[in-house]
């Protein structure tokens, strides 16, 4: 499934954000009309822009538009897109999905070996900030959950907090889940500023990959990162912020995994949720695969011990990006179908599996890199 498409932009001088409609009779403000035939009265109704498969020979003077777009199949009525000077049409929000994410910035102060969205070192913050402000105002008020991701969102500085304030005001019923490496909160003032927003629907997902600084710093490729993150978590806890710990499972994190579980309980007992996550074969991972790959089958013992220990001590635990057939049955209760709809795939053999409906399956990009132990459940064995 595609979230991007491209055509030829006209009269677009800055990114425009709007809701998709195919209904010519609607008069929605901030709406972009998708049409085959450009209506004759297009200049008198209130559509902000036109998206069409027609080429520029149908140019409408002074009307922002993207021409010659190959198809719009991926867009539903009400989806929110950004259209850019270069003709790119980026899907920002899909009404039929529970996995919508605001991209805060592609900048990052870490450089994790297994980053799924490798950072870029250009200053995209003001541009994305203004897109997101517009986007937030258009998101339906009944949106259940919204992620904020990067890059490292806190690198936005004050704009990060303003984004949250804006969200709290405009989407008071929406659960907000921010992915941050937490390092910025080593400055107490950052945690204090966050606390001032008093945002109970906000949860911060923070990665901790080891209980030993050098292993963690190596995995995230940043000196001092571990100490900053742990201090950051403590500062956040001091201000009663809700925290989730995220642990990616790979060859570097597995050897100390059960020790990490104990470390979390001893030193971070205030966390609300701990998520153990299978490795995604995308971003930097293929490049570093030698350093990272361990068949999930070969870490079930360590994972089981970590999960059962934390859960036994009353901490809510989940396993993400994992397949039921690879894990022992006692761990199934922790598995979540966590992979966003459009990234989620199954292997051909999964079609014969009796657990297909309960299993979270794979990332699309893991279809070629997965456990050797994937094996459908068939009636005879069950």
């Amino acid at each position, binding site marked *: 499934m595609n979230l991007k498409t491209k055509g030829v932009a006209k009269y677009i001088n800055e990114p425009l954000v709007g809701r998709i409609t195919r209904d010519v009779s609607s008069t929605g403000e901030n709406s972009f009309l998708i049409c085959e035939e450009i209506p004759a009265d297009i200049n008198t109704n209130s559509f902000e822009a036109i998206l069409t498969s027609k080429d520029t020979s149908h140019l409408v003077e002074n009307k922002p538009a993207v021409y010659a777009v190959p198809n719009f199949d991926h867009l539903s009525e009400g989806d929110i897109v950004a259209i850019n000077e270069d003709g790119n049409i980026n899907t920002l929000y899909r009404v039929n999905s529970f996995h919508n994410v605001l991209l805060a910035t592609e*900048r*990052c*102060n*870490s*450089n994790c*070996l297994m980053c799924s969205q*490798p*950072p870029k*070192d250009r200053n995209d*913050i003001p541009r994305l900030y203004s897109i997101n402000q517009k986007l937030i105002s258009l998101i339906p008020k009944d949106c259940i959950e919204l992620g904020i991701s990067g890059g490292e969102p806190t*690198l936005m*500085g004050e704009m990060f907090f303003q984004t949250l304030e804006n969200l709290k005001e405009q989407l008071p019923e929406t659960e907000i889940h921010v992915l941050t490496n937490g390092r*910025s909160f080593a*400055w107490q003032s950052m945690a204090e500023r966050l606390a001032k927003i008093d945002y109970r629907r906000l949860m911060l997902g923070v990665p901790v990959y080891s*209980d*030993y*600084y*050098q*292993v963690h*710093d*190596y995995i995230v*490729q*940043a*000196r*001092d990162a571990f*100490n900053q993150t*742990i*201090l950051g978590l*403590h500062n956040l806890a001091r201000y009663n912020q809700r925290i989730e710990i995220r642990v990616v499972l790979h060859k570097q994190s597995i050897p*100390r995994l059960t*020790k990490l579980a104990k*470390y979390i*309980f*001893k*030193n971070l*007992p205030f966390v609300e949720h701990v998520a153990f996550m299978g490795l995604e074969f995308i971003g930097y991972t293929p490049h*570093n695969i030698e350093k990272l790959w361990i068949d999930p089958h070969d870490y079930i013992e360590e994972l089981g011990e970590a999960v059962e*220990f934390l859960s*036994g*001590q*009353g901490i809510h635990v989940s396993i993400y990006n994992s397949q039921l057939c690879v894990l022992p049955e006692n761990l199934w209760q922790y598995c979540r179908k966590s992979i966003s709809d459009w990234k989620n795939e199954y292997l051909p053999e999964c079609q014969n599996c009796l657990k297909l409906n309960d299993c979270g399956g794979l990332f699309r990009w893991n279809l070629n890199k997965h456990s050797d132990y994937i094996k459908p459940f068939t009636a005879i064995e069950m």
Partner: protein
Amino acid sequence: MIESKANRKFKEAAFYNSQNDGGYFLLPFKFHRLNGEKEILVNEVGDYLILPTGTTATIVNRQISKENNSELYGDLIANFFISEEAIHPLIDVLATRYRTKKHFLNYFTGLHIFVISLRCEHTCFYCQVSRVTENRDQYDMSIQNIDRGIEIMFKSPNPHVTMEFQGGEALLAFDNIKYAVEKSEKIAGEIGKQITFVICTNLALVNEEILYYCKEHKILISTSLDGPQSIHDSNRHKPHASSYALAIKGIKLSREILGEDQVSALMTTTTLSLEHPIEIVDEYYNMGFPGIFLRNISPYGFALRTEKSKYSTDKFIEFYKKALGRILEYNFQGHYFTEDLARIYLTKILTPFNTGFVDMQSPAGLINGVIVFNYDGGVYATDESRMLAEQKDFTFKLGTLNDEYKDLFFGAKAQEIAQVWSNEALAGCSECAFQAYCGADPVHHHATQGDMYGYRPTSAFCQKNMEIIRYLIELMESEPKIKKIFESWISKK
């Protein structure tokens, strides 16, 4: 603040090493030989590592290196035993951990024991309270003293106070209990404090009317059950009746009216009990209790006078181990059944938290966690302190209910006791590996050694704690399945 990486080329693990010239600093920790092969190292906040005997010496002699002992080195850094900087970069985390361990100090006195009557209809041979069968006026707490006790209780800065009625047999003065409960409920409501009520009773006198009153006022029942009938009745003498039969009947009725979890029982280990660890555990299990608290007898008070209750700490430890073995058997069979003394230690050993158990704290729970208002208006540091007073030893009498709050809780007597109530500052304890798991007990040491400060090498308190703590650690470190069981006992789930 906005920074990006200058260079996104991946670097090797060694690049992220912050150690300078192979050196490291020691953080405060203590150690103890567990058995022939292993020693235990315990850091300032109670986290421990079990290592082969002799490892402490190699650590102290700076013979541990990242290259040759990489896993151990990581363990020592991650668990706050050594640091690569003179001041550990996560010292604030360690400070928070320390505060969490001493969290029980935050609120000051919670448990307020009202000895509502010294009268009792039992004649238990080991009873630390003298029995007095009549004369209400002399041996019941007066309304005036109850009023004054309530007044002092609500001066406690603790937002949640517990009012516990003891005797003698508390139910002999049930009318006074009702008076105290209703008055305290009203005040608690007015000033916005939470209050929990507990009546300690042998249940012989309990009836539906009393229990419905308890239900209405959410009063918990704490009773005594020493084991099966033969043991219980022999320990707890009641003229012309079976104390056991009355206790069991009372427990059943209380559960019926109040609910299972509103009724708890305590046992006392006598010389007779020492021979029956299995039967005692079974009795608690069969009675449907979720666990048992294996308590040794107070080595002082009325009890000391009778030969029947004198036994050595060795004997108690042996009893304890046998009983614990039985409890573990139940757990191996899949039943959840706990031993509460172990649970207290294990909470300190395995979690970042502490317990509210006043007998095993440092600074000690006396005054800080518990205070006793005696029937006659005397104010004592602990329950045992007032029992000493029955033998005319007033060492731990802080004053009377007519004194000012500050004079009782912060007066000369309290200050004197405070000199010896922290095991961090007691010879023997100050370098003990189990210090963080143990406590200080000035009353015990005064009663048994004639000196509040105490002398650890001959202290029964120390002997018991040291061996039980060592034993619990040895058990769980040798048997993963025992560790799982222990972890389930301390779970907050």
